[in-house]
């Protein structure tokens, strides 16, 4: 049903402290024996992820026939910005007030976005934006001939933007994913959400906090503290296994 794979996402898709040949898109390419373009970019917001097929078009795009386009969403709490130096849509990787600063690499004075970010948090606008962004992602099906699109949340945060750890974050995220999927179906979109294969939880949850599944996961006496939630090579393999299970049952 597909002859190539185009993967879009943040660092959980690209690769993080490992090799790109060990990323989950690369593992899927090996499994299905198809060419792969991994367009993931660390710190990308969901809006930036939706634009990756256009802003990060791979040189070999014409070889990627009938692609399976996988959008691996990240936390909603990232803010899209227009980068004046690069003149492209980029992202603020964190909306925590203490992380907003002048970024000499992008030329963006991030602090000036703080009032709008606060307003968006109050209005729950980050989650509302995900609806528009998902519609954009699914629109690629009309533009790229022979494409099939699947989407789902990979990366999520237990911490709310105010820094407080939300103990119910996982369950809330599960409800949101189901709600997004339902919204798309109710509005006539063909929604293929890979979170279905992991009980509608974010894919990150399949790592289940097992230390070996993460790059750096430290257990403290008071409980478990995540230093780096990125998957280890073993964790990435588990991501790929879940993708294969979903694709084989729903797409291939």
């Amino acid at each position: 049903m597909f002859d190539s794979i185009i993967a879009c996402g943040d660092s959980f898709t690209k690769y993080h402290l490992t090799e790109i040949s060990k990323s989950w898109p690369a593992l899927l390419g090996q499994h299905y024996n198809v060419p792969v373009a991994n367009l993931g970019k660390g710190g990308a917001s969901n809006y930036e992820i939706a634009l990756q097929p256009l802003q990060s078009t791979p040189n070999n795009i014409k070889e990627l026939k009938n692609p399976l386009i996988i959008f691996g969403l990240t936390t909603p709490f990232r803010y899209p910005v227009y980068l004046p130096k690069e003149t492209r849509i980029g992202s603020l990787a964190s909306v925590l007030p203490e992380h907003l600063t002048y970024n000499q690499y992008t030329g963006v004075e991030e602090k000036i976005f703080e009032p709008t970010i606060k307003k968006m948090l109050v209005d729950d606008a980050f989650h509302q934006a995900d609806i528009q962004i998902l519609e954009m992602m699914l629109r690629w099906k009309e533009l790229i001939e022979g494409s099939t699109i699947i989407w789902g949340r990979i990366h999520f945060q237990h911490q709310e933007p105010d820094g407080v750890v939300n103990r119910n974050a996982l369950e809330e995220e599960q409800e949101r994913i189901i709600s997004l999927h339902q919204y798309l179906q109710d509005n006539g979109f063909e929604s293929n959400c890979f979170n279905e294969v992991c009980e509608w939880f974010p894919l990150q949850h399949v790592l289940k906090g097992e230390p070996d599944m993460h790059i750096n996961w430290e257990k403290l006496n008071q409980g478990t503290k995540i230093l780096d939630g990125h998957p280890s090579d073993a964790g990435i393999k588990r991501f790929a296994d879940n993708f294969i299970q979903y694709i084989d049952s729903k797409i291939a």
Partner: protein
Amino acid sequence: MDFDFILACGDSFTEGCQNIVGLGPEGTWPGLLAKKYNVPFANLASGGSSNTLISLQPVNTPHGKIENGSAVEWNGLENAKKPLIIFGFTVLDRWTYFDGDMGRITSHFSIDPEYMSKTDNHGNDWTDWQKDVPLQNLHRKHNFYNGKLLENYTWATVQAINLAMQYEQLIPGATVMWGFIHERHGVDSFGENIFTLIDKLSDPYEVTHGVMEWPSTHRCFNKAYDWKPLQRMFDKKKQYWLRPEINDHHPNLEGIQLIADTIDTAIQGVFDV
């Protein structure tokens, strides 16, 4: 003819001020071209769009929804094998930003402080940061292009053209054309033609002209009008203005026909019909 669909992107000069003219998309220049070539079309243009936003319209524009008063329908694109995608670019200095209420990128039609002090395209009040960002960016030169150091708004248009051309890579069989239609009224952003720019970074009282080499000019429809922005065809002829009584230089039906005819000349040049 070597295309089976027309997808048009742009600002109000492409959108056609449909709510004022009183005709639907069929009365805009993309609609006139589609009628001539007997192909389906979609006009995704939206008033006030920046060049960056125009280059994103094929993916950023909601499908089948109301966009600034105009129904945007894409019927038939999914069946098109050889779409012709035309980008009608505009003035260089418009500001692109993320609108949290809309959940997507949008733009503001002017960076003139007089207009920034009011409201945005959607009736929202401008906050202080919204006023500051574009003005900060206007006076920063950051990027070398063909040996020249460009200010951000010109560089943004170079990148917008590059993005527009990228659709040819993404959509097998697609042909992309681009060009400038709208130019800044009162203070020309272009000199004699689109290759001469007024350097806005110079002292405001010292107007200098520089040579600009735009990318992908082999697909630029301005060639059909001696490389001038198309608005100049009627900018000093009130009979082509939509509302001369209030100095509104948008094209009326006759002006829209002029644009359509000129872009048609460019189309024939590309496809050698």
